[in-house]
C-alpha cells in the first residue's frame, strides 16, 4: 500500500490518499465515519488500482482544512483536482453513503471523469415518508445499531469499537466525531442538496448497491436514483445494513468487480 498527500485547492486542502493494487483505476469515496483500509478494499485491490482519498478534514493531521471549503460545489471541484493530481483522466468510482452522493455529484459535474459508478447506499435525496435517519443526532451507543445490521459484529467493532488503550480510544473517538462533523458540513440538516437538479448530467453506467436491512437510508431510496439515471441497476445485499461492503465484503466486491469489468 502506498500513501500520498495531495495539496489541492491551491495548497489549502491537503487530501491523503491511500492506494493499493494493480489494474484499472478505481477511486473509493468513503462515508461519514472516516476511512479505514478494510477487507473490502483489499478485495477490490486484487482487480483494481484502488485509490482511497480521505475527505477534507478527516485526516487527523489536517483537521481544519475543511474550513477552506464553503459548500458542496467547492468539494466537487476539489475532487476534480484530486483526480488530476492522481493522473486519472477517468476512473471507476465507488462511493459509500456520503461518498456515494459525492460520486454522483462528481459524475454529474464531470461526466468524463467517471467511467463507471457504483454507489453503495448513497445519500442525496429526501422523502418525507421515508426519512433518512440523522446519525449525527443519535445516541453514540445506538449508532452502530443503525449503521450495521449486527452492531456487535466484527465489522461494526472495527469501525465503532473502542481500543483498549485509553489514548488510542480517545483518538478514535475524536476521529469518528470529526469525520461526522466535517462530512456533515455538506449535508446538514437534510442530505438533499440539489442532486435532483444535476443528476441528469450523469452518463456513466451506474450500479446501486443496498443492504436489505439498511436502517439509516431505507432501500426505497434506490428508486430515486434508478428513475433518474438511464439504465441504472440495483443489487441488494442480504444480511446487511447501511454497510454492505463491510458486512459482506466478498459479495459486494464481487458485484463491483463484475459491474466494472462488464
Amino acid at each position, binding site marked *: 500500500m502506498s500513501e500520498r498527500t495531495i495539496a489541492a485547492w491551491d495548497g489549502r486542502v491537503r487530501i491523503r490518499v491511500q492506494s493499493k493494487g494493480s489494474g484499472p483505476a478505481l477511486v473509493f469515496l468513503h462515508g461519514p465515519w472516516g476511512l479505514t483500509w478494510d477487507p473490502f478494499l483489499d478485495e477490490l485491490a486484487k482487480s483494481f488500482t484502488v485509490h482511497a482519498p480521505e475527505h477534507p478534514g478527516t485526516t487527523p493531521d489536517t483537521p481544519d482544512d475543511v474550513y477552506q471549503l464553503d459548500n458542496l460545489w467547492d468539494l466537487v471541484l476539489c475532487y476534480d483536482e484530486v483526480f488530476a493530481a492522481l493522473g486519472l483522466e477517468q476512473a471507476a468510482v465507488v462511493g459509500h453513503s456520503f461518498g456515494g452522493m459525492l460520486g454522483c455529484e462528481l459524475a454529474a459535474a464531470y461526466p468524463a471523469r467517471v467511467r463507471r459508478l457504483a454507489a453503495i447506499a448513497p445519500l442525496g435525496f429526501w422523502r418525507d415518508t421515508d426519512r433518512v435517519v440523522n446519525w*449525527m443526532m443519535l445516541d453514540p451507543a445506538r449508532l452502530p445499531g443503525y449503521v450495521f445490521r449486527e452492531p456487535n459484529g466484527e465489522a461494526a467493532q472495527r469501525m465503532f469499537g473502542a481500543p483498549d488503550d485509553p489514548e488510542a480510544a480517545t483518538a478514535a473517538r475524536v476521529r469518528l466525531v470529526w469525520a461526522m462533523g*466535517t462530512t456533515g458540513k455538506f449535508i446538514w*440538516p437534510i442530505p438533499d442538496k440539489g442532486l435532483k437538479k444535476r443528476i441528469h448530467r450523469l452518463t456513466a453506467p451506474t450500479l446501486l448497491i443496498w443492504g436489505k436491512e439498511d436502517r439509516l437510508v431505507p432501500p426505497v431510496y434506490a428508486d430515486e436514483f434508478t428513475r433518474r439515471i438511464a439504465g441504472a441497476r440495483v443489487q441488494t445485499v442480504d444480511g446487511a445494513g447501511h454497510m454492505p461492503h463491510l458486512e459482506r465484503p466478498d459479495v459486494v466486491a464481487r458485484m463491483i468487480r463484475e459491474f466494472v469489468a462488464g
Partner: protein
Amino acid sequence: MKISAFHLMPHRELPDDFEKRYESVWVTPPWHELADAERVGQYYNWTLDELLFAARAGFDGVCTNEHHQNAYGFMPSPNIMGAVLAKATNGSNVAIVQMGATLPTSNPPIRVAEEYAMLDCISGGRLVAGLPLGSAMDVNLCYGITPIEHRERYREAFALTLKAWQARELFAWNGRYYQLANVNLWPRPIQQPHPPVWVPGSGSISTFDFAVENDVCYCFLSYSGAKAAKTMMQGYWDVVAKKGRETNPYRAGFLQLVAVAETDAAAEAKYARHVEYFYHKCLHWPIQYLSPPGNQDYRSLVAAAKANIRRAEDTKALRYRDFVEKGYVIAGSAATVRDRIKQEVVKDLRVGNLMVLLQIGSMPHELTLENMDRFARDVLPALRGEWDDEGWVNHWWPERLRGTAAPRTAAPVGAGRA
C-alpha cells in the same frame, strides 16, 4: 457588584410523568399534547410581571434569553419581552439585560443589531447586549445551521454587529456567510461606542479566548451551580491573565439558581418540588443533543475527549437536598443564601455580574414573587457592596447606571409573606 433577575419562561405544569413519556423537553416535545396557547399566554404575562416586580424591588437588571422548541424556556424572541420591560421600566435605573438574541439564528444578523439599538433607544441607554453563540439545540437542531459552521457564522455575525453599531458611514459587508451591500443601521444605540456586550458560554475553551480577545463580559450560564463551575471559571481567568487583561471581576458573569425562605427548613418545604421539577423535567434531553459532530471545533473536541468527557451528573437521580448540598441551587434562609453566594459565587468564581434565577421550574407566580421579594430585601443589599473595596470599574454595565444602586421604586405588593 451588579445583580440581575433572570427568567427562562418555562412551562410550569408539565405532567408528572413527562420525563418518562417524552424523549426531550427540547426540539421534539409535542406542543399539542403538552401545551395550550391560552395558558401559555398566562405564562408570558406572569414572566413579564415577575421581571417587572424584580425591577421595582431593587434588582440592578432583568434578563431574558432565547430558546426554540423548548418547554423549559420559550422566548424565541427575547427582544419582544425586552421591549415590554424597557418601556415599563423607563425612568428607573434597571438595566435591560438581553442574554440574548442569538446571532446565528438571525438572518441577516444585523436584525439583532437593529433590535438592540431599538431597545437601547426605548430604554434610554439601559441595554446590556448579550450576544450568545446559541445552543446546538436551538441553532443546529431547530434552526438548521450546520454544526461545523456554527462558530464561524457567529464570529462573522459578531464582527458585523459591532461594526454596524459603530460605523459612521454606510458600508458594504462582503462576508463568507453574509453579504450586505448597504449596511446603515437605523436606529443606532444611545450608548457609545456601543452597548456593553456580554457573551454567554457553557465552558468551551474557544469561547474563553473569544471573550477575552474581544474584551467582553464572559457569562457562564450553568444550571449546575457555582461549586461545579469552579474549575471552568478558573480556566477562564487563566486565559484572562495569559492574554494580559486585568482580572476585573466584572468581566465575569454567572447564573445561579436561588431560593430564599424564612429558614432553611421552610425553603425545603416551599421550593423542593419546584427544584426537582426543574432538574428532572426541564433539563430532560438526550445528551448528544448538546454537541452534534462539528459543533465543537477540533481543539475543543480533543480537549473534551482528553478530559474524559466530563460526564454531567445524572440529575434525575438527585433530590432537593442533593441539589442544595452540591450547590446546584443555593437555597435556605436569607443568611444561608447570602453567605453561600458570597463564598461560592462571588469569591470562588470572581464574579462581578451575578444573575439569579428565582422562578424555578413549576414555581407558581405568587411564590416566585415571594422569592424575589425576600432576595431583594434580605440578600441583595448585603451583596451589592462586594468588590467595591477593590475599586474596579464595571465597563460591562451601561455607563449611566454604573454608579447607582437601583432604589426600590415602589413597595412590592403581593409578595405573599404568609
